[in-house]
Structures are given as structure tokens and as C-alpha cells.
């Protein structure tokens, strides 16, 4: 054994010699593996970032009240950004939480995680610095700038110590690269992390170049067997960098071309390279039962399977089947679930209206008034880590619970509901056949929730004409829609909150977290005097989020299928998409002159032209996919001993 191993070893060393000697820009000594080489490059990058912070610190300390000094400060800040963008893909991959908290998080106050009582944190890091350094009067903010730079320097100590302690594995390099492509497209070129400057495209170019550099040492290893793939990858990377460099203007940058021509092809090619080298993916290093949010084997950002719906649900893929969905669908349309036997889930979530009800606010039990908010679409609703406009619930299974108990909705309880369902022999038999493991008590919270959530999961679709075009399945998409998409992801700033590919507040590139925003939505439409809607949203949602920064904060819902789901916003105040666009164009509540203390939407007008507004609407209107979602049950199960229940209407009377 030992001997054969030695021989093998020598052969490999020999091979390594050959490989590396024929590759000039790669590792310089044969003792270095690509991983170690990339690691040393990364450590050098970390040191550069540290030096850039230090330089900024010196300049900020001696900041004077004149234009030249401010220009120097801004130049130094730009250099800091460049040095960060060179290492961002690893920094974010290894420690996204630290980066968000201290290095490159949004310039907004936030709540401390896992704190024993309410604790609001001030923003730290480069983005809040950018707001000051590129703000109206950096000199006036000198003290604040100095404090933030000092904090960044302190935090750099922790950053460097931890990041350099990580032993590089090959798969990290590939995974970090692919997640960076998602980040560049969804957060980079949209201007998400460049709140004040127009450097987004330039920064994307640096990102792409750095990812390419990290992958280069692996190319010779694959070249022998997979030469065309490697050549295509090299060519596409070079093309991407050139494209970005030649189109640096933020407003006119063609995101569609960048996506189709570079991001998507590279997203697949890097995967192909990884698999061809036999480098493991996270499926092989994590427990096989682990649910990953991103389907690593998907080859396109708009692949229908990019996101793993089961990540967000209690049911697992192996539990999901047609029988479960069919049962869930019947329950969804069965008014017997409600205390009055007259309301079903479908009462407020109607298939022909994109699973909304067309009302500003849904009708309450016994037709007495309305519930508090507008019924949101259920299509793609599974892709979230929190539910309700106020984000008060963490699991879809528990979302249902609030409908069941609410006196204005189902006005019942789990146990009452289950007892009633157990009166139907047909339901009991059906549950037993779908859940053979629960023979003794087939109707319970677990089985009920599994059926309903499986049905909700079936209401997923990323196959609109837009998606088909992006994936290259069709060449036809109206020019206006493409323009609208470019505006959405660029000048209009929509994509910085409605993130691709769900176009909701589910944050890329891990898609673990749903966000809410304070927009200052008004009580009446734009024709009336602006008055803020009194609904405080998230502030009165989850007790642990009872913070003033969440006053009037509402979940960022999806823009997909939005042409079916009027009226809009949590209170249904806007009848048309044109009105919605107008509201944003004017800068939300603050832009309308309202005092909205923690508005997260910039108050400045977007200055969209009428044509641009039309194109934006055209883009949103094309995002429709309800394929195979509108099926309704043709009959409801029989209650053998309660004939009066058998008169109930599919979907209820509401």
C-alpha cells in the first residue's frame, strides 16, 4: 500500500510540475496548490484593504474646509472601495454577517441580533461613510467621519484575524465566485451598495476581474480535457471586464446585455469547471438532509430551480407529491375550515386575481368591515423567511395559524377545525392515504400544515416571457420591456429592494432573509392631500421588533404577477401600477413632504420621463406566470352525517 502510494505521489508531483511550468501567471512554485496560491493572494488583498483604511484615516484626520481636501478624501475613499471590491467575494462568502454589520452594510439603523432586550445599532462601515464623504458638507461631518473610519480600522483587526485563519478549500473558491456573480448583478450594478457615487459599474468590473484571477490557477488543470470550456470561460470573463469598462455610465448601462452576455454564461461555466475538476460542492460536505437555499447546480440566475422552495418550508422534497398538493388544494378551497363554514383561504386569495381578492382590504368575517390589510399574492410567497406585511411570523406554517385564530378571518382554533374535519369519513380516509405514518391521528397540525404548504409551494413560477427571454429560450421580448427592466435594475432603483430573481425583498445571494422598507405610503391616493397611513406595520408586529425604526415598515412583496394583483401596497391605496410608479418617482412619503422619520426610500425624485414610466410598467406587466396554478377542486369531501355541510360552496361565499 505504502509503496503504491509513493509511486502515485511521485506521478502527481511530476504532473504538477508539467502543469504549472506551462502556465506563467499561475502559482510560481510547484509546492503551491492553486488553493494555497489563491489564499496568499487573498491575504495580500486583505493587507491592501487595511492600508487603504489606514490611508483614509490619515486624510480624514487632517480634513480641511476646502474643495481640494474634500476631493482628496473622496479619492482616498474610492481607493478603499476598490481594494474592498478586490476581496469582496471571499470576505462576503466567509463571513457575510460581519461584513453586513461592520464593513459594507446598508447605511441604516438595525436591531441587534439575539439581544436580551431591544437594542438599536447605528450603521457602521463604508456605506454610511460614503453618505458623509459624498454628502453636502463632508467638512461639517469631520468628527463623524473620523469616528466611523476609526471604527472601521478597529473592525478591520477582527476581520483580518478571522479571515486569515480560514484554510482555503478549493470548493470555497468556486462557491465564492458564483455567489459573487449573483451579488454583482443583483446588488452591484443596481447601485445597492453605492448609495452616493456612480461607481457601481466600475466596481463591478473590479469584482469580475478579481473572480477571474482567483479561478485562473485552476484553468490549466482542466484545459487538457475540457479545452473549449476553459477557452470560453476565459473569453467571457475578458469580455465582461471589457464590457463594464466601456460602459461605465450608471444610467445607460445595459443590464440585460450584461446579464445575458456575461453573468449567466459565466455562472454556468464556473460550475462546469468545478464539476469537471471533480471538486466537491456543498451538497457533498454538508449533511445530505441539509436544505440549501440556492440550488448550486442551477446554471442560470433566472433558472426556474435557482431557489430551493423546501429551504423555506417544513416539508421536505421527499415528502412532497401530487397527492399532498391535491389534498392541500382542496383544504385551501374548503370553507369548512372556518368557524362559519363560509370562508376559505380562497375567499381572499382567488386564483384568477393572482391569489388576491381585488379589494383594498379583505372583507372580514360576517361581512363586518375589513381586515387590517390588503391580501398579498400567494404566487412565489414561499420564497420568504418571514410572513405578513409586518413580518411578524417566521414560518409559513405559522402564518396559517393567524388566519385560523383571527376572529375576523376563520374565527376557530386548530383543535376545533381538526375535530370538524374528523367528522368527514372522506377527509379522514384521504389524510390517512396521504400520511400513512399517522394512521391513529391522521388530521393534526403537522399533516394539515404539510398539505397546505405543499399546495402553496406549488404556486411557484419563474417562467414568464421575461424569464424565458433571459434564459435564451426565446428571442422575443418587446424593446419597451427590456428598457423597463434596465430602468428597474438601474435608474429607477427598484431592484435595490425588489431583488432579482424573485423581485421581492428576499436578499441575494443567499436568499435567507426577507426585508421590509419604510416608504411613507399615504392613506389616500396621489390626488389627495398627502397623509401618512396610520398603520405602523412592523413596529406592532413581532414584539422583539417593537422599534421606532420599524414604524410604517412593511414587507417588500414580489413584483411578479403584479398586473393581476391590483390594488397595491399594504392598504391597497393605489389602483394602478402607474400610480405606484408615480409614488416612487416622487420619493415616497418624504418626497411628498410628509415627516417619515425612518423612511428607507430616498426622498429625492427619480426624475423618470413619461416614457420611462411607461416602460417600467410594461416590464412589470410582463412578469406573469400562473401556469398550472389556477386549477380548482371540482368537489369537496362529504360530511356523511352533516348534510347541511355538504351544501357548502367551493371557495366559500366571500
Amino acid at each position: 500500500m505504502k509503496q503504491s502510494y509513493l509511486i502515485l505521489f511521485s506521478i502527481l508531483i511530476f504532473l504538477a510540475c508539467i502543469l504549472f511550468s506551462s502556465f506563467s501567471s499561475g502559482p510560481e512554485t510547484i509546492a503551491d496548490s492553486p488553493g494555497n496560491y489563491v489564499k496568499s493572494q487573498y491575504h495580500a488583498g486583505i493587507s491592501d484593504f487595511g492600508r487603504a483604511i489606514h490611508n483614509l484615516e490619515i486624510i480624514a484626520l487632517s480634513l480641511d474646509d476646502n474643495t481640494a481636501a474634500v476631493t482628496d478624501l473622496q479619492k482616498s475613499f474610492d481607493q478603499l472601495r476598490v481594494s474592498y471590491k478586490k476581496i469582496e467575494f471571499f470576505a462576503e462568502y466567509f463571513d457575510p454577517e460581519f461584513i453586513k454589520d461592520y464593513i459594507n452594510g446598508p447605511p441604516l439603523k438595525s436591531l441587534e441580533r439575539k439581544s436580551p432586550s431591544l437594542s438599536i445599532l447605528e450603521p457602521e462601515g463604508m456605506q454610511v461613510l460614503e453618505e458623509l464623504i459624498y454628502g453636502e458638507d463632508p467638512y461639517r461631518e469631520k468628527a463623524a467621519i473620523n469616528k466611523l473610519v476609526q471604527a472601521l480600522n478597529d473592525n478591520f483587526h477582527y476581520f483580518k484575524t478571522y479571515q486569515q485563519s480560514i484554510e482555503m478549500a478549493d470548493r470555497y473558491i468556486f462557491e465564492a465566485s458564483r455567489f459573487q456573480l449573483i451579488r454583482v448583478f443583483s446588488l452591484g450594478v443596481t447601485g445597492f451598495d453605492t448609495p452616493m457615487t456612480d461607481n457601481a459599474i466600475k466596481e463591478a468590473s473590479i469584482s469580475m476581474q478579481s473572480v477571474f484571477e482567483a479561478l485562473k490557477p485552476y484553468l490549466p488543470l482542466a484545459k487538457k480535457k475540457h479545452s473549449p470550456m476553459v477557452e470560453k470561460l476565459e473569453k467571457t470573463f475578458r469580455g465582461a471586464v471589457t464590457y463594464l469598462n466601456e460602459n461605465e455610465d450608471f444610467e445607460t448601462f445595459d443590464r440585460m446585455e450584461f446579464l445575458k452576455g456575461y453573468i449567466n454564461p459565466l455562472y454556468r461555466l464556473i460550475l462546469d469547471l468545478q464539476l469537471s475538476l471533480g471538486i466537491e460542492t456543498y451538497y457533498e460536505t454538508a449533511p445530505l438532509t441539509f436544505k440549501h437555499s440556492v440550488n448550486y447546480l442551477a446554471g442560470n440566475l433566472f433558472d426556474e430551480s435557482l431557489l430551493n422552495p423546501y429551504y423555506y418550508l417544513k416539508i421536505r422534497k421527499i415528502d412532497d407529491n401530487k397527492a399532498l398538493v391535491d389534498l392541500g388544494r382542496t383544504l385551501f378551497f374548503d370553507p369548512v375550515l372556518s368557524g362559519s363554514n363560509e370562508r376559505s383561504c380562497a375567499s381572499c386569495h382567488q386564483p384568477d386575481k393572482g391569489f388576491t381578492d381585488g379589494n383594498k382590504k379583505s372583507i372580514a368575517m360576517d361581512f363586518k368591515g375589513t381586515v387590517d390589510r390588503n391580501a398579498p399574492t400567494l404566487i412565489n410567497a414561499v420564497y420568504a423567511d418571514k410572513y405578513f406585511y409586518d413580518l411578524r411570523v417566521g414560518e409559513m406554517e405559522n402564518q396559517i395559524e393567524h388566519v385560523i385564530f383571527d376572529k375576523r378571518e376563520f374565527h376557530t382554533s386548530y383543535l376545533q377545525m381538526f375535530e370538524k374535519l374528523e367528522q368527514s369519513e372522506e377527509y379522514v380516509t384521504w389524510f390517512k392515504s396521504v400520511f400513512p405514518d399517522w394512521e391513529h391521528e391522521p388530521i393534526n397540525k403537522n399533516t394539515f400544515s404539510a398539505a397546505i404548504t405543499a399546495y402553496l409551494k406549488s404556486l411557484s413560477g419563474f417562467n414568464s416571457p421575461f424569464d424565458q427571454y433571459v434564459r435564451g429560450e426565446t428571442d422575443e421580448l418587446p424593446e419597451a420591456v427590456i428598457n423597463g427592466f434596465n430602468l428597474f435594475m438601474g435608474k429607477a432603483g427598484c431592484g435595490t429592494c425588489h431583488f432579482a430573481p424573485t423581485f421581492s425583498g428576499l436578499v441575494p445571494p443567499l436568499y435567507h432573509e426577507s426585508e421590509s422598507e419604510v416608504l411613507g405610503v399615504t392613506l389616500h391616493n396621489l390626488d389627495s392631500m398627502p397623509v401618512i397611513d396610520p398603520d405602523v406595520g412592523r413596529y406592532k408586529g413581532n414584539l422583539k421588533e417593537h422599534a421606532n425604526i420599524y414604524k410604517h415598515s412593511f414587507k417588500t412583496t414580489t413584483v411578479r404577477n403584479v398586473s393581476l394583483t391590483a390594488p397595491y401596497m399594504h392598504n391597497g391605496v393605489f389602483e394602478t401600477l402607474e400610480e405606484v410608479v408615480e409614488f416612487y418617482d416622487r420619493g415616497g412619503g418624504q418626497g411628498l413632504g410628509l415627516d417619515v422619520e425612518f423612511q428607507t426610500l430616498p426622498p429625492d425624485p427619480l426624475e423618470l420621463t413619461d416614457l420611462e414610466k411607461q416602460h417600467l410598467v410594461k416590464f412589470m406587466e410582463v412578469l406573469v406566470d400562473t401556469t398550472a396554478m389556477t386549477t380548482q377542486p371540482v368537489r369537496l369531501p362529504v360530511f356523511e352525517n352533516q348534510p347541511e355541510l355538504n351544501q357548502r360552496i367551493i371557495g366559500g361565499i366571500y
Partner: protein
Amino acid sequence: MKKAYAMLIFVLTFYVNSYGQYFFDVSVDTAWTPTTVVLPPSPLKFQVLFVGGSDKVQTTATYGNEPGEALAKQWHDFIGFTPDDESDDLGWVSVNHERINSNDSIGDGGGMTVFKVARDPVTDEIIIKEQTLSDGRQGKFFNVDFVNTVGETGMNCGGITSLVDGRIWTAEEWFRNSNDDISSLRNQDPFTIITDIPGDFNGSVIERYQNFNYMVEIDPREAKAIRKQYNWGRQPFEGGTIMSDNQTVYLGADATPGFFTKFIAETPGDFTKGKLYVYKHDALTAPIDPWVEIDNKSLDNMLHFAERALAAGGTMFNRLEWLTNYDGKIYMSETGRDGLGTRFERGIAAGGVLDYHWLEPVRSRFPQMVDKPDDQVIEFVKRGGFNDYYGRILEFDPATGLVTTFLNGGPFFSESPEFAQYPEKHLSNPDGLNVMVIDGKPFMVICEDLNGTSNGRVPAGLRNRSCELYLLDMSIEDPAIEDLTRISVTPVGAEVTGAQATPDGKTLFVNSQHPSTANPFPYNNSLTYAITGWDIAVSAIEDIEEVVLDEKTALKVWPNPVAKELKFSRVLDAAIYNQSGQRIKVFRGQQSIDVSDLTPGFYFLNTSAGEVQRLIIK
């Protein structure tokens, strides 16, 4: 031995540098001739006892509802255990629910569930008993009635099990500062205190929110709350411990600054009367007495405990969680906090002080602090310069009056460790703490509750919180992270908490709280489970600790057949292939792996050194 280990590392590093990383074939030819080593499987048995949102609890008449049944609350935290001396049953298990729910029939707020357990004389397994309580409730699980006894409860997090007689207190988490903070509850009217605690409590009318955040004694036999301990102060309590004199109580508060307090009852077992003290390490009275009394007959003092403690110059801690005691000493987890900010600075301005247990963690992370005088290090902590990511376990010795560090969280590497040396064990944000005595030997049971995922609290490239449960042999002097034995990993995303042993040392009850929804039923709910067989397993644990790392002997892999944890005689880079030769798992730098996710059957283990072993997963 050390040398052999070093050599091994060298050899492995050499592989890594040269070809070890290039790569296991995606699929291989399965015509191998592996050897199989068979060793006995683990003696530990797992049993799920109580599933939140699934098991039904018996309820009392609450908010106008009839007594009845409801689905149990979720978010299990503390577990209390009360032995039954009057029958052959083991005793009562009390489980906290750390979540505010508005619920008609089981009371607003967090709450508790109690149930009674016995041991099967043949299998040693835990059996849940049917009970009839004196209020007429019948069933297995009972909702503890707070609403009709002492008033609504907060989020119930930690608590106290008296080791003397099994009395149970539950701690109300999430400090409320105004009625606005209880706006989700149906009742915000002023609250009239009714209590047998002497002082100006009984009959006083307080704001509703001021009736939250106490230690609350409950009766697990009758599933009823007995008393809010107004005389221990209104504090963000997480844990406490009662000494063997049945008079002295030590308490910890989960805040920054959080205080370490002591209550001494006038007569053993009567906790309505006694004096309350806050810890002050630098108290100058002689003989050295690090305790300053706070008058606990004053309602005003008790409602504003933190202010009084600061004014008395109390020593400030960074989020004290659970406390326990063994052999006269008190152990408490200081879970830590990302970013201290100005919290200590403000505390000092109000009179608080910092002690010297900070010196070690700061100096181990900041080389430039090693030679600085102590006061400069404390100054550094004071100004918020120290990010306390990992926390620690503290020890208080009443004989010396000193709080010292028992075990620091971490480890934190200032230099990149070798791949094979990358820590298999990492302790972050210790929370639940207990002592389990197995066959006469004390072990500390430590539960993690990660405050975040940054700075290595989860492995690189994995972004889900995963909390672990560790055992520590308390006979080890000056223990370190490598002395920990990992005994249970809760389902992904969960906080492991509540670990509480039965007095016979055979069973450990553990809660898995708010797990990720990605686990199969019932592991996608908060649940209480029992791990039985420690009396047999503990010798096995010790044997494993002593496995000698030796690169000269042939690779040993055990147990085989294996159900859960597969161990190797040395650190490995290896891949597991199924019978058709398809690669399904790759791991690097590991000395043990969890294979419970593999479907039972035959597999092959292929190491980077070319060894092949056949595996049987059962």
C-alpha cells in the same frame, strides 16, 4: 505522542500542499477489497418526549374559556426536574416556552408545560405518565397557569431547579420598559400585587409591564405558578442556583451590564424572607466581603434594581445566562455580545465597576495588549474596544470572593492553523449550564446559543446557526476547549438548551429550540428529547478521548456498522462512495464524521492516502 501528532500534521500538510486537494474522483470503480473493523455501537438511546405545536396540553379556565385542550406552545428553553420521592416514578419535567404568543386558552405570554416521567425498568427508556391534577385536569401534558395565579408571564427562558428538593423557578426574559412593550397582550391595566413577601409589595398597584421580569416559582405537580419573587428584584433574569443550605440563592441577569446577585433566606426553604446583595468585587470592607446589600423590602428598589445596583458600585458582567453549583463553587455562563458599544462606559458613569476576568480574553486576542498594565486593558474593554464574540464560563468561589474565568469560548486563531488542525471543537456563546453526576463523577453540561455566525462561530462556507451540547469532565484542572466532548448537535438552526440530567445520572433531557424548518418531523418543531444510557456511555467517552494518533499503524474506522458518528484513528481527507461508485460525501481534515444522513447500506470510504474501507450504515 505529541511528536507523532506533529509529524502527522506535517505529512498531511504536505499532502494538502501537493495533491491532497486534487480531488477525489467524482465516481470510482468499486472493485475494491476493503477491510472491515467492527466495534460496538454507542450505548446512547434517543427518545423524543414532547413536541411543541403537536402535543396537546391540558388548560385551565382562562380569559373566559372553559378548561380544555390546546396545542402546546413552541420555543422550548429551560428544563426543570423535580424528583418524585413518593412513588417509583422519576419525577416531573418542567419546560419553558420562550415566546410571546397571544392565546386565548393557554394564556398570553411565554409559559411552561409540565409532565411526569417514569423509567421503564427493562429498557431504561423514559415513559410519560398520565396524571390527574387536583384541579381536575387529566392528561399527559399540562399548561402551567400563570394568568389566574401571579399574572401573565413574559418569555420564559432560563430558570432554577433546586438541587436540594427540586423546587422550580422560571425566569422571564425580554426586559420591558413600558406598557408599549406588552402591547400585544390583551390586558394593559395596572396590576395589583398580591403576595406573601414582606415589604411594601402586597396591595401595591404597579404598571402592568412592571409585573414582568421576575423569577417565578411554579409547582410542577399541580401545573400552577406560585409566586413572583418580587424580593429578588425586577431583572432580566436568565438563571440562578440554590446552594445546599437551601438558603443561599445566586442569580444572573442577561444584560450588559448585567449583575450577579445573591439572596440569603432567613430560614432554609422559605424564600419569601431574606436579604438581597449585589456582587462588587472591589468592596473595601474587611474581611473582604464582595457583597453590597440592596434593601429588598422596598418595592421602588426592586422595580429599579439595575439603577440601584449601579449606584451601589456593582460589578458589571456581559450577559449572564445560566448558573449552577458544584462542590461549593458557583459556575455561570457569560454568553458575550457582539460589540459592547458604550454600555460599560455608561455603566461606569452610573457607578458600576469592571473586574479583572477580562484581562485574559483581551490579551489572548490582542497581542499588543499583553504587556500593557491591567488598568489599560480594562480601559480598552470599557471603551467598547473588545468585541466579545465567544463568551465564557465563569467560576465564583465564595471562599475567596473572586470571579474567575473557568473556560473561555473560542478558540480564536491569530494565525491560520493547518487544515487538519482546524478546530473540531468550537465553543461560542455558552448559555445553558448544568452539572450532571454520572457514576459519581461530575460533568459540566454546556449548551451553546450562538449570537451570530461571524468570526468562526460556524464553519466557513456554512451560514446556518448550529448549536452544540458539550460535556466537560470537571476533574480536569484549568480546562480548555479541547477537553470538551461534543455529545449532541441539535437539528440545524436550533438552539440547544435546557440540558438537565436525572439524579440517577442515566438520562439527560435536552430541548431543541426554534429549529430550522429544514428538518423532518418532529425535528422541525421545538422539542424535548431524552438521551439515556450515560451510566454506560461515560466510560466510552473517556476511552475515545484516549485514542492515540499514530500515523504508523493502519487506519482504523469505527464503529462499523455505524448509525451516527464514524470515527477514525487519525485525521483524514476522504470521500464516501455509494455502491454504484458515485461520490456522495467529501470531508477534509476530520477525525470523526456524522453519517446519520446516509441511507442504510454498503458504502466505501476512500482516503486521500489511497486507503479503502468498506462501511456498513445501519
